[in-house]
């Protein structure tokens, strides 16, 4: 992935990032050599099953790795500068000011005993050095930006509906004018209508503030609605990366194909959910070669021995022995 964007330095560049979680005995590799780039204003979805490493990837970028996590390889560059993602203290200026997070489950992410304006004002005071008065004014401004009337600012979290709480979380994430927002399944606990409203809000804010979005989700319908690009992760590795149109129209990797085939589509008579056979891989004892080979319908002998390289294929990237990287096909990714 070196020098793949000679024309323009991306906002965020992740090169071969590997993160281990320290378990007694041997460490567990949560993500293994993840590489991707994110441009200003771009929305990328990280899609995968539980344990596929999507949250670890996003939290590493936001500087929020848990204390037992260790960066065992790779680098993250932000605006051309290397991020010290494994150094808690050195990440402090970056956190929230440049990359902020919309946590899932807003009820837990809001302190029940403080008014919402006070909670939104907190990062402004701590990060931007505002006085309490300035910070409160900024908090009210942010509330209006996410569609909550200013007079609701005095409310406590339990007095708000689920959708409004999620809006408060978004307002909080915007407090320090970051360039990247990580949405950690921001619509998981919401009903479909509220979900659509929150996604629309995120889309509007993105174009208004030129924000880049990393959306963690396992819901492909959310992806189609709100992202430019999709990265499919499996067992801690990126298996396919492409634009939303590409991934949905012609998925390359067998896992992606099965994933998309599993969405029921009543419109064309496909009313049954077709699950992917087999179990998610065990991260402690990851299958050799391509981690997906035990469940893959088109396994070849090479799949059990060699880890496929994430190479360029068409307009995107795919890591599969069925689609060996084409060196001559140097089409710009993310066109």
């Amino acid at each position, binding site marked *: 992935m070196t020098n793949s964007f000679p024309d323009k330095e991306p906002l965020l560049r992740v090169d071969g990032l590997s993160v281990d979680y320290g378990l007694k005995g041997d460490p567990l590799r949560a993500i293994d050599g993840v590489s991707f780039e994110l441009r200003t204003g771009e929305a990328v979805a990280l899609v995968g099953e539980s344990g596929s490493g999507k949250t670890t990837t996003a939290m590493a970028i*936001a*500087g*929020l790795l848990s204390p037992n996590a260790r960066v065992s390889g790779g680098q993250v560059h932000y605006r051309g500068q290397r991020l010290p993602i494994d150094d808690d203290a050195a990440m*402090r200026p970056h*956190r*929230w000011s440049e990359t902020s*997070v919309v*946590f899932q*489950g807003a009820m*837990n*992410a*809001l*302190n*029940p*005993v*403080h008014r919402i304006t006070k*909670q939104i004002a*907190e*990062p402004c005071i*701590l*990060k931007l050095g505002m006085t309490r008065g300035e910070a409160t004014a900024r908090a009210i401004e942010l509330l209006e930006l*996410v*569609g*909550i*009337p200013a*007079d*609701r600012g*005095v*409310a*406590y979290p339990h*007095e708000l*509906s689920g959708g*409004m709480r999620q809006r408060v979380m978004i307002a*909080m994430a915007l*407090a320090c004018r970051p360039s990247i927002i990580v949405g950690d399944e921001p619509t998981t606990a919401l009903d479909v209508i509220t979900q659509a*409203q929150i996604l629309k*809000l995120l889309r*509007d804010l993105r174009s208004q503030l030129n924000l880049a979005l990393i959306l963690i989700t396992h819901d492909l319908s959310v992806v189609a609605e709100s992202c430019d690009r999709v990265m499919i992760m499996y067992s801690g590795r990126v298996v396919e990366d492409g634009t939303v149109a590409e991934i949905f129209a012609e998925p390359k990797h067998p896992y992606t194909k099965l994933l998309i085939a599993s969405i029921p589509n009543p419109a064309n008579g496909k009313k049954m959910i077709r699950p992917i056979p087999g179990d998610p891989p065990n991260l402690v004892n990851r299958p050799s070669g391509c981690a997906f080979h035990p469940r893959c319908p088109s396994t070849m002998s090479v799949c059990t021995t060699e880890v496929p390289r994430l190479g360029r294929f068409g307009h995107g990237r795919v890591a599969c022995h069925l689609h060996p990287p084409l060196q001559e096909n140097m089409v710009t990714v993310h066109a």
Partner: protein
Amino acid sequence: MTENIVKYPPRGRTRAVKRFLGQFLRDRGAQVGLVCLVFFLIVAAMPNMLVGPLQTAINATGDFLAPPSGQHLLGTDEVGRDVLNLIVHGARISLTIALLATVISLVVGSTVGMASGYFGGWVDTWLMRITDFFFVMPSFVLALIITPVVLEVMGRSGYILGFRLSLFVIITVIGMTSWSFVARIVRSQTLSIKERTFIDRARVVGSSNLSIMVRHILPNLVPQIAANGALVVAGAIYIETSLSFLGLGDPLQPSWGTLLSLAQRAGAASAGAWWYLGAPGVCALMVSLSFVLIGNALDDTFNPRRRAIP
């Protein structure tokens, strides 16, 4: 964006406090406890206005061990002092000791419990072993051993804020021996609160550990601390009365326990002077009972799940 937002009337802290008080005051126990407590607080606040200065053997006005009469509503003691006068002055001493001891207990207990739960690891291990030590040690026995030693070393004389030094020894001893169960409750709550996402969020936006504990965890602990604080007061009154009864109180500033002790030594029981033994005993009982009632009512109000249990 705003078309789907329903407007609610603004609700604030006053409203929440009102709702809380409404529910709290509906509890019969809380009503009884509050009335009783307010009565004793008024008595303790102005003893001189109600019954005149504290009587001693020198300015005693009555007969020896006279039964209750119009002049001495609660009778007199063995040197002719008015028992009502002693009780009213004792209220101030007893309540001060109990409340100050509770403050110490809550401050120490909350600090240890929060630090233990928040930091975890070896901090937790060591703080909890120390807490266990105080927990298994019956606080009354510990107080019984520490108090005479400290009194011997420091002496009984000297005044702080109008109270004798020996009273502060008792306050400290009660405080230091009753914090352990507060620490345990606070620790368990802290363990659950610190796992919630808003603590991570506070850390991410740059709050220090101290600020997370004081501004994010402590306000969430107020229900537990308040409800248990009321129970600690009741316990403190009990320990204070017992210690004073055993002669560790200060005879120059008699608390209810000291009065009980004096009555016992004067042979009030065998002399049939029920008013001398009964009055301080009933007072101590009523005050600790009212604190227990208030504590239970607070617990019920703060914790809706408890109401389901009959």
